[in-house]
């Protein structure tokens, strides 16, 4: 019996869910050894992450920036590059967003905010494109260079924020001048979630459409699959790879800009909170699939929100949720080994017999 399309789909959902279930079971055993009631812990995890309207808003709010920073890993990955310097693009995006008003008077409202976000995206795009260009034209390993460029970006950020651009009124928390009230990003209606969530979901969807349904996206995937083969068929590999890096960087830069315009109101060291690094995990768990990034980021946000409640109710240390995350990732990544083997054997594709070469 041949393997059908629905088998792949069923597996795509069943594998991560089983892995997650396994992680929860392991975590239950873990807290049980620590002298806590696992049932209570499971219940709190659920209540904290998805239990009521507040929990959902908490979860989604935490997920929003992760969707964007995960794209900064996923898109270059689809073009064949392992970029892990999203944090650098994020802080530079935040800086760019805060700096524009120093130089130009912006119109209030949507138009002004758009300029800010555009500047943020541009800064991030340039930074990650630089890592891509170094790889393509100078042969510098992009994983290392993007990571180190991240540190450089943070150093530049601190230099500018705590030096030339510092708001003299920000004494003990050095910051840039706060953004004008009219330029800030608000919340989604009456919900306590800002517009960054809409941006995150929209960009993930757009990225998925781009990769799956455009010639350019298809070419990018070909390059990611085998750059030499792509060159042989005449694809402009350098341009495609650097474009993918730039789009990824733009997403992370946008995340930084949104953090500044919606949350911090000015650029300061609080922006460097590891959102860019968390995006790496999200992207790898989502197997660099932009559509999968959305639920994985929400799951991540949920872990954060649940961890918050777990600390308050049970006095568990913050690290306990990290343990759960660890279980979840190891199992989700390990579950890949079961792909194609999960369904009953009768449903498995029959391998065509390997033709044996006959001597001529």
């Amino acid at each position: 019996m041949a393997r059908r399309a629905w088998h792949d789909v069923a597996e795509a959902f069943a594998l991560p869910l089983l892995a997650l279930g396994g992680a929860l079971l392991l975590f239950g055993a873990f807290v049980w050894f620590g002298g806590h009631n696992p049932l209570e812990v499971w219940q709190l995890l659920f209540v904290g992450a998805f239990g009521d309207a507040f929990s959902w808003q908490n979860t989604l709010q935490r997920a929003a920036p992760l969707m964007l920073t995960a794209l900064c890993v996923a898109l270059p990955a689809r073009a064949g590059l392992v970029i892990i310097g999203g944090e650098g693009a994020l802080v530079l995006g935040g800086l760019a967003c805060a700096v524009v008003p120093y130089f130009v008077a912006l119109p209030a409202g949507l138009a002004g905010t758009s300029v800010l976000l555009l500047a943020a995206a541009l800064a991030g795009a340039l930074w990650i494109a630089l890592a891509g260009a170094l790889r393509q034209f100078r042969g510098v390993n992009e994983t290392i260079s993007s990571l180190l460029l991240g540190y450089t970006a943070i150093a530049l950020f601190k230099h500018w924020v705590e030096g030339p651009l510092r708001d003299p009124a920000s004494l003990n928390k050095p910051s840039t001048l706060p953004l004008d009230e009219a330029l800030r990003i608000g919340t989604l209606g009456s919900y306590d979630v800002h517009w960054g969530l809409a941006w995150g979901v929209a960009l993930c969807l757009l990225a998925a459409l781009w990769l799956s349904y455009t010639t350019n996206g298809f070419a990018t995937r070909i390059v990611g699959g085998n750059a030499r083969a792509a060159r042989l068929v005449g694809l402009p590999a350098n341009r495609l790879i650097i474009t993918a890096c730039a789009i990824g960087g733009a997403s992370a830069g946008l995340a930084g800009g949104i953090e500044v315009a919606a949350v911090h109101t000015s650029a300061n060291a609080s922006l460097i909170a590891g959102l860019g690094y968390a995006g790496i995990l999200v992207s790898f768990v989502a197997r660099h699939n932009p559509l999968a990034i959305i639920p994985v980021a929400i799951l991540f946000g949920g872990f954060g929100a649940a961890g918050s409640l777990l600390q308050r109710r049970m006095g568990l240390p913050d690290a306990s949720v990290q343990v759960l995350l660890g279980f979840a990732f190891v199992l989700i990544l390990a579950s890949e080994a079961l792909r194609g083997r999960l369904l009953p054997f009768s449903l498995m594709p029959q391998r065509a017999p390997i033709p044996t070469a006959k001597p001529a």
Partner: protein
Amino acid sequence: MRQDLSRRRALAQISAASLATMTPWAWAQAPLSVGFIYVGPKDDFGYNQAHAEAAAEVKKMAGIKVVEEENVPETQAVQKSMQGMISQDGAKLLFPTSFGYFDPHMLAVAAKNTGVRFSHCGGMWTKGKHPDNTGSFFGYIDEAQYLNGVIAGHMSKSKKLGFVAAKPIPQVLRNINAYTLGARSVDPSITCSVIFTGDWSMAVKEAEATNGLADQGADVFTMHVDGPKVVVETAAKRGKMVCGYHASQAKLAPAAYLTGAEWNWITAYKQIIDAARSGKPHPNFVRGGLKDGFVKTSAYGSMVSEAARKNADAVKAKMVAGTFDIFAGELKDNTGKVVIPKGKAFKQTDIELEGMNYLVEGVVGKI
């Protein structure tokens, strides 16, 4: 009218106090939920531990329910943690303890929860600018750093001190200056070299800075970073002496630990909690030093000489009596410019000190 009110309030307090002593379960009927939020781990031997230790004292108070959260970054996460404490745990009083929580995070949540009291650690609350249900508390820990300096001045053989600092912001500069002034009150030839690491928690850079300063000959160290553990341990390993900061690090290096500048947050917490329980207006602006019990010094290490102890105790007695000014003219900065003219002395409460932007003479370093 005002007298009348205060008398009534006093009466209420007295009756409440007597009620409390007579019937200890009186408070227990409606426990006050208090939330504490820390930016780092509760056991960092530093800033967060100082708060967590005081929060542990609060837990022992009758009629108080404490909820805590550690490692909360200064992002949306802290806003959600505060809101969660309010809507999920029914907290009526919150202590967001990290400096960066104030603006915009605490202010944003406070605006949505006007019935909840917020007390931020740091000196940022300004009357008229910030809402009345918010406030800030802080301590003049430079007094304890000055005493660290006095001890260091006596104990140093190389006459070179080391200071590992996070950022050149007013609060940190004030500590560096106080430490240096304390040491130079013992011997004016002493210098104090400072290295800024750039952020509050940079373990590797802190170790490098400590080693670098030790190589330059510094033999007594202190610091202003969130977790002094690395500096204390590195200095001890190099055979140097240390003065602690935030909490006591004596346990980490008993043979090297001279004394330390510690917070004593329970004093501030009690004031603010008592006001919340008795329904008094929220104390918005709470400050204090050694005299008020907001800061304290670690017990002297066994190696601290008799002369050093006597000198430090004498200065401490003057500070407690309120007759000692750390920052008094004529004071020059380390470029030779006069920053406080002759005859002028700043009290600890003077707001000018909170915008400090210089390093005093004797500090080797640049802002």
